[in-house]
């Protein structure tokens, strides 16, 4: 089967790779740990550029899952044990590069699946490639929803598994006046559109919103607006991404907009790693909603964190995106074993209904290609960890948002054999 690959390959590196593949698969069985063959998977994250800080952790979690599966005997299909061989590519924080590298992984390396992406922009850039080649991608990050592709599996939270429960919780416990702050790109804009609809429905009040260009650090006008709109405290929902967060929290603290003065601040892009980078002293007492926290007190969660630290260093922390990335490798392996094949079409059909005991607890792939998630709200502590203050239990994903009028009533179900299975009215 793999000899086919050799024929169509032009690049010298790829030839070398498949030669070594033939060598392993053929003669020395003992040397490669008793495997009967190999299966290549693509890992496509930004290993350089602005996003590298975040995406490195995600790629490391995927490599850790691959090592674990290989150590346990690889993927077992058709009576054979296959070793997972990761092919790593660098998306370089540049969206067209993601599309180009995805093409390369599919055509040249003939990978069985691609794990990759972080920003919605990178996913949107890769989507046409995976649809055109009818191949498939696993995407690990919580995102804005409003998408349901047959060629993507989403293991991060949809808004109804992160933002919506968090907003309901804020409305119930922290106040009705909301100020929305976000970076100026697709995720914060879409997430805030959804939140505004939700506030209308659930009786909250939007007192202001503002967007900061990515990388901008001058937040004085935003702080002034928050003070005008919420002079006596209120709720601030923060969807800023990356560096702007540091400026935002440093200057908020200096201006006295802190939890101690009656402001409840909820962030959707700040996990353990970001807390460490911004500094816990600026974030203490603010909230975040995620599907996994390092402080989650279960044996599975503790084992995941301990393994990660053992592999990558004691100072490292685990977080939701890393857990989600780790899960998707296992989900794919289980899908392949269920399909009894690594063929992408068969695995894709088999994946629906696959369950996995993730570090957060059991998750299951749903017919809309998203997974069920445990939804929790945490409060940042002095040591940079989250104290879990609310557990909403396991929630099913909704790809199409039910608060936004344009998508209300629509659903997605890839088990149905209808041409509009990705988006149809119930």
């Amino acid at each position, binding site marked *: 089967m793999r000899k086919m690959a050799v024929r169509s390959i032009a690049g010298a590196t790829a030839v070398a790779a498949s030669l070594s593949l033939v060598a392993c698969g053929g003669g020395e069985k003992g040397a490669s740990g008793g495997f009967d063959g190999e299966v290549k998977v693509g890992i496509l994250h930004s290993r350089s550029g602005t996003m*590298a800080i975040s995406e490195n952790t995600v790629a490391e979690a995927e490599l850790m899952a691959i090592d674990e599966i290989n150590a346990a005997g690889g993927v077992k299909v058709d009576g054979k044990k296959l070793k997972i061989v990761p092919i790593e590519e660098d998306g370089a924080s540049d969206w067209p590069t993601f599309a180009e590298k995805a093409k390369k992984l599919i055509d040249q390396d003939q990978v069985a699946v691609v794990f990759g992406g972080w920003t919605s922009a990178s996913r949107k850039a890769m989507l046409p490639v995976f649809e055109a080649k009818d191949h498939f991608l696993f995407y690990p990050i919580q995102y804005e929803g409003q998408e349901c592709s047959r060629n993507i599996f989403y293991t991060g939270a949809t808004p109804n598994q992160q933002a919506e429960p968090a907003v309901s919780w804020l409305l119930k416990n922290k106040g009705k006046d909301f100020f929305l702050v976000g970076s100026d790109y697709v995720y914060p804009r879409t997430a805030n559109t959804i939140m505004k609809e939700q506030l209308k429905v659930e009786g909250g009040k939007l007192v202001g919103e503002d967007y900061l260009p990515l990388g901008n650090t001058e937040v004085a*006008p935003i702080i002034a607006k928050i003070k005008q709109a919420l002079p006596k405290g209120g709720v601030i929902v923060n969807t800023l991404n990356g560096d702007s967060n540091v400026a935002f929290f440093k200057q908020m603290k200096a201006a006295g907009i802190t939890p101690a003065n009656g402001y409840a601040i909820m962030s959707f892009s700040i996990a353990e790693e970001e807390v460490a*980078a911004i500094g816990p002293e600026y974030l203490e007492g603010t909230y975040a909603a995620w599907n996994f926290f390092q402080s989650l007190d279960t044996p599975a969660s503790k084992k995941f964190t301990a393994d990660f630290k053992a592999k990558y260093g004691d100072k490292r922390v685990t977080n939701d995106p890393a857990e989600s990335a780790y899960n998707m490798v296992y989900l794919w392996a289980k899908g392949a074993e269920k399909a009894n094949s690594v063929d992408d079409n068969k695995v894709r059909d088999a994946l629906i209904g696959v369950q996995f005991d993730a570090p957060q607890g059991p998750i299951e792939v749903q017919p809309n290609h998203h997974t069920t998630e445990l939804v929790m709200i945490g409060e940042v502590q002095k040591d940079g960890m989250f104290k879990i203050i609310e557990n909403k239990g396991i929630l099913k994903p909704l790809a199409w948002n039910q608060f936004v009028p344009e998508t209300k009533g629509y659903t997605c179900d890839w088990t149905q054999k209808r041409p509009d299975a990705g988006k149809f009215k119930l």
Partner: protein
Amino acid sequence: MDLLYDTLFNGLAIGSVLVLAALGLAVVFGLMGVINMAHGELMMLGAYTTFVVQNIFKASLPDALFPIYILVAIPLAFLVSGLVGLLLEKTVIRRLYGRPLETLLATWGVSLILQQFVRSVSSAFALGLVLAVVLGLLAPRFTPRAWWQKRWTPLLAVGRWIVAGGLGIALASVLGSVRSLDQPWFSARNIDVTAPTWLRGSIELGGVTMPTARLFIIALTALALVGVTWFLQKSAWGIRIRAVTQNRSMSDCLGIPTETVDALTFLIGSGLAGVAGVAVTLLGSVGPNLGGNYIVDCFMVVVLGGVGKLAGTVLAALGIGVLSYIVGSGSLLLVWPAMPAVLNELISFFATTSMAKVLVFAIIVVFLQFRPAGLFPQKGRLVEA
């Protein structure tokens, strides 16, 4: 009235960061006509110096001294960025005087090198680099003087750098096999500079909350301005710098060492970038890409102010600060609540930080259409122009 004070203070706060960041550029671009795209990276080096100073204070000095680390960081950052700037001038920019386009490209390349440098520098790397630079610079001392008058001397000039570079790489890779020397100092991650407690709070004055970090930056800016003005107007070297700016050949004839003047000007401009780097650690994040966030604003300020005029730089920066605050915070809506609906819509449309930036840029572009030389046009001649 509160609103007026609030606007003035916040405008001043935003403007003072711009003044401080652009001051070094105003010296380099304004007095020497050098388009230095690596200016942002010199700021970044200043910020990293702050990080190192902070860590030294945390690790090896008594806790009681920690609050003043930032004061120690300021002169050190000036020194580090200034010396890097001096090296840059001696090796690259000196060869490109009077060729603005090449300077632009070369310094942009330098900015990329500096970014990657802080990402990948480790002890082994640094030692290798030092060896290469020292060997390259000292090569003429160790070789027979006759070699330097032959026809193949130009080859030698290039060759010594190749040999020095090769030796440096060899040393770095040998040392790199020792694990502790191979650890990157900073890595590509953003680093955490914690402001001392006295710079984290705010004070209430006349109904306006003034963050102490902002007040500190305003004071630092004022100090830097006074220092630079004094230096250029009163000191002997400052007068020489201005003389060279006004008429290079005449100054040369009168015995002013123009090369030293160029190097000194560049050192001061770069050093000021380092000081700005210390200031911005109080506001935002510190990472290899820090410079990119400021470089466009810096050029905007210098061009708007009028190249070569410090007063123009200050006025332009404060103007941009106040304008972007007024537009971005939408405070016009509060001053005149009964304004016509159309105007109200328009102002709210621009009252987000992104749109405010767009509007400020648009206003500057229109302004430069009418006053292409900026607020205060230079009356003398530019260097080499």
